[in-house]
């Protein structure tokens, strides 16, 4: 590995580092669990790493409740998410973190890193998309712009982030109070742990006291170029009674989820298999 490092401690220093290096090749280092193996494998000439590990800005480093929702700083680790009391009401997110890599990697890997790596197989990213979370992006001029995570990913390993921007936090907006929550993360892989998903489904569905579905968020991973929010499947569920869904309803829901899948065949699974398994797990959650 060969690179130079800048370690900003304050947001001002960080913004200055971004401005100073606009003409150069730089990358951000947060948890380094992807960056180090990538750089060990292939050197990048003239690389400057802007190290975020020393940054002291609670907007980046903490999880807190605010008026508009729960804000998760981009530099919070997966272990931080697991132990946060506000986030326990989102089983989809907790289950996604639990299925993510290993205990050791969860200690350092960050939520922002998972999003910005923009892998179509990102577990935690998939859960956040299902929850309707919004990315809050810091621009080098100090301003913030927001982009819903449904529009954040533009392709395999690419996002809407420009060279003078970085992800500061994600906001999970407050949700309508719900009588019942059906929420979880299903990850299909060849083994239980340390696995990259072959297909995954994140879902967070709420009902009122009569069982009527009042909100529905589902997202799929590893079956398209990016993680996808399965909008028409969510819309299909709204207003239906959760306890009276027919077999046909469940299949229509699964058909709708599949509209967003355009999987490839690769070393880990065939496109056919990914289609089949996604349909099956989609139907099974209802």
């Amino acid at each position, binding site marked *: *590995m*060969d*690179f*130079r*490092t800048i*370690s900003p401690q304050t947001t001002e220093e960080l913004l200055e580092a971004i401005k100073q290096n606009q003409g150069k090749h730089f990358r951000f*280092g947060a*948890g*380094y*669990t992807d960056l*180090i*193996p990538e750089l*060990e494998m292939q050197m990048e000439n003239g690389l400057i*790493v802007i*190290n975020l*590990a*020393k940054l002291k800005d609670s907007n980046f480093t903490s999880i807190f409740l605010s008026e508009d929702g729960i804000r998760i700083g981009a530099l919070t680790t997966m*272990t931080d998410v697991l132990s946060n009391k506000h986030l326990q009401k989102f089983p989809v997110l907790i289950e996604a973190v639990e299925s993510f*890599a*290993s*205990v*050791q*990697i969860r*200690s*350092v890997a960050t939520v922002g890193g998972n999003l910005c790596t923009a892998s179509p197989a990102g577990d935690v990213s998939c859960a956040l998309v299902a929850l309707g979370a919004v990315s809050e992006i810091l621009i080098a001029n100090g301003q913030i712009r927001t982009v819903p995570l449904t529009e954040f990913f533009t392709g395999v390993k690419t996002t809407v982030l420009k060279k003078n921007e970085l992800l500061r936090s994600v906001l999970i907006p407050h949700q309508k109070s719900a009588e019942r929550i059906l929420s979880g993360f299903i990850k299909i892989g060849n083994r*239980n*742990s*340390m696995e990259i998903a072959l297909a995954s489904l994140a879902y967070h569905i709420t009902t009122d006291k009569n069982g009527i579905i009042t909100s529905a968020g589902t997202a799929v991973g590893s079956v398209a170029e990016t993680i996808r929010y399965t909008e028409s499947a969510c819309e299909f569920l709204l207003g239906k009674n959760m306890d009276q869904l027919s077999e046909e309803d469940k299949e229509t829901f699964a058909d709708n989820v599949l509209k967003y899948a355009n999987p490839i065949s690769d070393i880990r699974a065939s496109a056919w298999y990914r289609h089949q398994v996604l349909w099956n797990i989609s139907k099974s959650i209802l």
Partner: protein
Amino acid sequence: MANPLFRISLTINGQPVQADVPATLRLLDFLRYDLDLTGAKDVCGEGECGACTIFMDGKTVNSCLILAVEADGSELMTIEDLSHGKMLNEMQQAFVDYHSVQCGYCIPGMVLSGEQIIKDHGKPDRDTIREDLSGNICRCTGYQKIVDAIEFAADKR
């Protein structure tokens, strides 16, 4: 342009340590080559195998995926700090008693992950032990005896 050195100050096994390190130095290499703490092993180098596991600020991490500069200000514990002189701690002794060790290369990481499992779960069932050991790979024993040892050490504590 020469790569500048960074001054880092941290606590390792209870001792304060200061050093000037290049930005690219991995924490694992710092421990093994600069401090001669060779208990953490360099195997896969990409966070799959867990042989380089150490405790950083009370949590297990893969030291091959951490830069020495990132560890500035932190508190580290390596396998070398677990025994009291020649007295093994309960987890280490359980690994001996259950014959959990063959080639031994993965064992420092396994023992530390065992410690983390007890910290997180108290007296875990076998499925939990297996799940939380998923970041540590052993190619000799088939895990059975490693899980036995951790289960025993957890029960005893």
